[in-house]
């Protein structure tokens, strides 16, 4: 067999035949040599093959400063490679969006459904500025956190303070054309940060989030009316910006959001229920967060998630996966700011079969047979943060009751107001299973002691 033909053959089939596993950066660099040039050109964002390519190995982003990628492990599928390249490329994508004449709209993550409204307008890209809280961990750097401290945020404050630094530096995303921020039953840390961003000179529209006193099925109609009136304000602001006023755009936007939500949900269910975990927790968490706004190119993100869905389905069909069959199922409450923790937990023989990442508002389906704003309001009323702690973790409690979940891990951030109050309560409510509560350390701060605690927790469950 001629050597070049063999090489091409390997390039085309390697991803199909490779055994699923978690691999590190060096492994990915090796495998990336098998990716064809055509495949690299095939995947691009904003339909721009000139500068929109994003299929790069983790090494690319590592060279550009994402130091933790040297230590992280990733799923070895082409779909995951595509996902990571796309996600890490987001900052560049936002700048390119603005260069292309698109409007870039910052929407706080708490708002959940506001991006769906933004995406009803052509050429408008919503993004979630608080996403920047991952950056200090991926970079193993306190640059953004230190800058936030210089700007006045106390040291003992949630890592989302990196957002203020990012707005100050203007190097992580372009100046948004509009900013929608939230207050009320959302997150004080986010709200306080955005007030300081306001003080930097950024104009924003504040939306008030009502506290959902009741469960997410039985609340007074007026809460929906409040939200609808807030969404009208968002709409009017967008009309002012774009000079377009066509509410029919909401229908395809909601359909797309639902398509994404249902795909993400399917992937989660396949992963949770398969005897052997087909997709690692880190990739799964990234997919969940993608529901918020599609990482600044929803169409491309949808395509990626479809590809991941196919990969996961195939693995489940074949009965293969990335972890051992005897991995112990646990639930994870509150997202880990440090992605390495997700790797660590799996290395200790655990698998994640349930999550509460404080973004339920972006996971639940949006009704399509109801007036759009009402549908959005109803889906938002299922948000994690706007109700009680008891409501927030009810799915986890259910999973514990039916013995699907053997243990629970709760991550806390020092200075996070919700964590400070909820964690002990959660431990009490989940008293039937072992609960491990860990404080996420600063970037590059995971110690042997923490590793030992997680390992000991896994032993307890065993």
């Amino acid at each position, binding site marked *: 067999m001629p050597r070049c033909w063999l090489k091409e053959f390997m390039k085309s089939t390697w991803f199909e035949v490779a055994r699923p596993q978690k691999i590190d*950066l*060096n492994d990915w*660099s090796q495998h*990336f040599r098998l*990716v064809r*040039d055509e495949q*690299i050109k095939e995947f691009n964002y904003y339909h721009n093959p000139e500068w929109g*390519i*994003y299929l*790069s*190995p983790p*090494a*690319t982003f*590592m*060279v*550009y*400063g994402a*130091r933790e990628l*040297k230590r992280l492990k990733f799923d070895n599928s082409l779909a995951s490679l595509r996902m990571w390249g796309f996600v890490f490329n987001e*900052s*560049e994508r936002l*700048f*390119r969006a603005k*260069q292309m004449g698109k409007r870039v709209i910052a929407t706080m993550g708490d708002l959940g459904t506001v991006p769906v409204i933004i995406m009803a307008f052509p050429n408008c890209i919503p993004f979630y500025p608080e996403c920047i809280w991952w950056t200090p961990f991926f*970079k*193993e*750097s306190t*640059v953004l956190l230190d*800058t936030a401290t210089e700007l006045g945020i106390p040291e003992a404050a949630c890592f989302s303070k990196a957002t203020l630094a990012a707005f*100050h*530096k203007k*190097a*992580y995303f*372009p100046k948004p054309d509009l900013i929608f921020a939230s207050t009320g039953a959302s997150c004080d840390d986010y709200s306080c940060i955005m007030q300081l961003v306001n003080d930097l000179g950024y104009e924003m529209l504040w939306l008030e989030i009502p506290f959902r006193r009741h469960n997410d099925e039985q609340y007074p109609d007026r809460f929906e009316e409040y939200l609808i009136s807030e969404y009208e304000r968002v709409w009017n602001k967008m009309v002012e910006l774009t000079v377009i006023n066509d509410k029919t755009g909401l229908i395809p936007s909601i359909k797309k959001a639902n398509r994404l939500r249902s795909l993400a949900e399917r992937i989660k269910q396949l992963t949770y229920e398969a005897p052997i975990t087909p997709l690692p927790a880190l990739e799964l968490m990234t997919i969940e967060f993608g529901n918020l706004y599609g990482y600044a190119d929803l169409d491309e993100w949808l395509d990626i998630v479809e590809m991941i869905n196919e990969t996961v389905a195939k693995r489940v069909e074949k009965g293969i996966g990335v972890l051992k069959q005897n991995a112990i199922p646990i639930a994870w409450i509150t997202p880990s700011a440090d992605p390495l923790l997700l790797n660590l937990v799996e290395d200790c023989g655990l698998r994640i079969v349930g999550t509460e990442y404080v973004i339920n508002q972006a996971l639940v389906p949006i009704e399509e047979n109801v007036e759009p704003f009402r549908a959005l309001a109803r889906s938002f009323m299922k948000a994690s943060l706007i109700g009680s702690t008891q409501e927030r973790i009810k799915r986890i409690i259910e999973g514990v009751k039916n013995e699907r979940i053997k243990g629970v891990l709760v991550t806390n951030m020092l200075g996070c107001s919700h964590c400070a109050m909820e964690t002990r309560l959660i431990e009490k409510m989940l008293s039937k299973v072992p609960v491990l509560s860990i404080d996420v350390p600063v970037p590059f701060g995971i110690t042997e002691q923490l590793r030992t605690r997680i390992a000991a927790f896994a032993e307890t469950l065993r």
Partner: protein
Amino acid sequence: MTEILNPRERFGLLVIDEKPDRCNIIPLITSHAATVAGIKLKEYYTDGEAMAKAQITAIEEYEHDAISIFSEVGIIAEAMGSEFNYPDDDLPVLRIPALTKFDIDKLKIPDPNKDSRLPVYLEAIEYAYSAVGDKIPILAYVPAPFTTGMMLSDPNQFLLDTIRNPEQIKKIIEISLEAAIEFSYEIINAGGLPILVDPLASGSVISPKAYQEFALPGEQGLIKFLHRYDFDVILHICGDTTPILDLLLLTGADLISLDKVELNLAIERLAPKMRIIGNFNTTKLGFGSPDGIASQVREMVKHGIKAEKGYIASTGCEVPIRAPTGNVKVFISAAKEAGWFLD
């Protein structure tokens, strides 16, 4: 003016066509770092940790915008069999080219993790990346295939063979390209951004025709490899590249580092497609007066920042090993003064 960005952030904005707070300032501080750190050159180019520490010392001293891991252009050739002398206080000197010892068929692609001084580079990159890589880009200079090819051969014979035996030269360049790719691959995994240096391809050494036939394909091959990683690739050719300016556009390089070229001419011909780097006369840096340096740098940067796709204030070639540190400081402070982008 107060700087709010660190070099990493500043470089990141440049390569996505955004204006940072001020232009990046990256004089080619390579072996000069040994002088700044007060270590012997031999220690610098044989000990990776020493190289990295010297670079970090230089960054702390000068506050410029990148670390440059480099000593001399023979590093790949040496790993492929060429022999060099190691003076204590000077850079390695070619003693016996590999192809004067054995045939081209005996040339092997070196293993960057084991062979010769390639591991020194990698160690330097890893050290620097670990120490400051979150804030400062780590640039690792990779000799381009043509330059390596010349270092594998008797230089005169090599140049003669570009006319008498072009196929032999192309074979040498092909294998040098493979070696450069493998080296770049490991540099990337260590955390460095490979930048190509091809000084022996300059107009001061070869004709534009020879450049197009031999040097250009080697550069293109390496740049194509690096583009698979979506890197923005820097190509540095010192000397007079005026005769090959239009050919530089064909390399695929995203940033072009120039030496003896009229800056305005380079901006006119290249700036619509490539970011310009350069190009202060290093002799002046070595021997000029601080005041003279300051005014010339300011003038240079004033023009440079008009480059359409972006500009990095730099020296035309490596900062002389024993350049007065005061002169280098003046270069950087003058560049900072003139390089602000005002909204």
